């Protein structure tokens, strides 16, 4: 769950059952085929390549209907997200230095303090989409609870305020990008942040808790140009506050937010 480095480097295993039950198609691995001539054992078989796999969302593709249709997910995940993964793998084939990083590290390193390297777009988009799928759930929406709600009320005044801010950020983002609920490490507070294209708050070491994809490909097939309807559907029916809670709990190991939120019995 969350942004842990779940994309383990491949260690030349042939069986790759993913922890969420999705099986990795071996054809998408970039392990060169063993080349055998008569009696010849290729040394290429021992070459280790790091690669990233297309991680599937933690729900079936039609589970988010009617707010996000199966057709949209098939395009968004199956073509776009998949495309970024393939693109990243292709780029990493050529580059020794980068292939050994975890995805988090790769994003930070290729962001290069604002002067991004060519791998950044693909790496960040893979990360962003993994994070985005996990930020949603069937039967989502509603309100956060307990400690998370208290933190939101502390930093935004009220949950409604936060919701308004989030929606406003999504509507005012021009072009392609993402809207995030982040925990800012230095300021030790929650904020709504919008970023362009593939940019991602882990690049400047903040901790994202939830995101919304506002690239047109993320909603056009279902909502056409009506981004407002899409954002509202996301906030009211899709966002998984459980996941956000889990993420902020983990974040509190790194950021001191004050007294622990012990729920009153």
């Amino acid at each position: 769950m969350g942004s842990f480095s779940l994309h383990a480097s491949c260690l030349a295993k042939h069986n790759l059952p993913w922890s969420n039950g999705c099986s990795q198609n071996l054809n998408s691995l970039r392990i060169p085929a063993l080349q055998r001539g008569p009696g010849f054992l290729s040394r290429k078989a021992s070459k280790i390549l790091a690669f990233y796999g297309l991680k599937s969302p933690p729900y079936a593709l039609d589970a988010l209907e009617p707010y996000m249709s199966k057709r949209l997910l098939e395009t968004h995940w199956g073509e776009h997200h998949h495309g970024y993964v393939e693109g990243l793998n292709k780029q990493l084939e050529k580059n020794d230095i980068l292939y050994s990083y975890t995805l988090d590290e790769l994003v930070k390193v290729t962001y290069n303090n604002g002067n991004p390297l060519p791998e950044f777009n693909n790496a960040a988009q893979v990360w962003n989409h993994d994070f985005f799928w996990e930020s949603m759930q069937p039967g989502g929406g509603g309100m956060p609870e307990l400690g998370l709600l208290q933190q939101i009320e502390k930093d935004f005044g009220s949950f409604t305020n936060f919701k308004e801010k989030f929606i406003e950020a999504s509507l005012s983002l021009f072009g392609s990008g993402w809207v995030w609920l982040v925990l800012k490490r230095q300021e030790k507070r929650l904020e709504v942040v919008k970023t362009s294209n593939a940019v991602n708050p882990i690049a400047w070491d903040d901790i994202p808790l939830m995101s919304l994809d506002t690239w047109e490909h993320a909603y056009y097939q279902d909502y056409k140009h009506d981004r407002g309807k899409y954002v509202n559907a996301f906030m009211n029916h899709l966002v998984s506050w459980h996941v956000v809670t889990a993420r902020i709990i983990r974040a509190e190991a790194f950021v001191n937010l004050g007294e622990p939120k012990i729920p009153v019995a």
Partner: protein
Amino acid sequence: MAATAAVSPPCALVPCQGLRGALVSTRNFHATKNQRQRGRAVAAPISAKFDLKPPPYPLDALEPHMSQDTISYHWGKHHRGYVENLNMQIVGTDLDGMSLEDIIILSYNKGDILPAFNNAAQIWNHDFFWESMVPNGGGKPSGDLLGLIERDFGSFENFSVKFRSAASTQFGSGWVWLAYKANRLNVGNASNPRPSDEDKKLVVVKSPNAVNPLVWDYLPVLTIDVWEGPKCISFIFSQSRRADYVSMFMEKLVSWETVSARLEMAKAQVAEREREEEKRKYGEDNVNSSNEAVEMYLDSNIEDPAE
């Protein structure tokens, strides 16, 4: 839409790009202004609003390549949205009354864009885009345009490859352009000591979001929209499909006639600019030399002191 007929440009194929005021802009003055001039008291303030200019062909004319659905959405919702938003933004400000190109350059603010830029530029970009296409378009250009393409890219195929690759590699939203660039440095004391025709070339450029080459002082002649959304209707928009969309545009929709016409206008504009610069420079030189001449005459009246 009927209201625009009174002031519409003479030829839909030749949009006004950069000829500030020379051709009619996409602006229409409200009837209230006329009424006021005739002495009737009107409550509404004077405002110069932009109108949504329709494409120069019916919305289903580009079938089956670009469906009527796509165009009616892209033009009717997105393009219209930009027009309405810009009108709301400029009311009462000093942008009100300026031409579209002037608003674009001003609000670009050398990269630190002001709020009106996105809407203004997107209106201009979309007008330009609709006019870049024509039913039964595509094929190859001819004449001067082809000659210039072959000179600057090697061959039409090379240009085509460059254009397509730019369209595929524009990350996020944006536009890809073929533009005519007059190589000059935009500083006062820089002058090209040996100006030649080779300095003016066609280039392929890509720009993000709403940016367009007018802000770099280029003269665009062709564009393709690579924002994702509206294409989603007929092209499921992943990287591979974007290539299909660009191919379709190049092979079936581009109006090379329009591009040629724009190129001629661009060349004329550049020539005009050069003439003005020449005149200015010549004017300055003239002033200097006439001063010197006067002094010389004065001196030569004096007898040689050595005598």
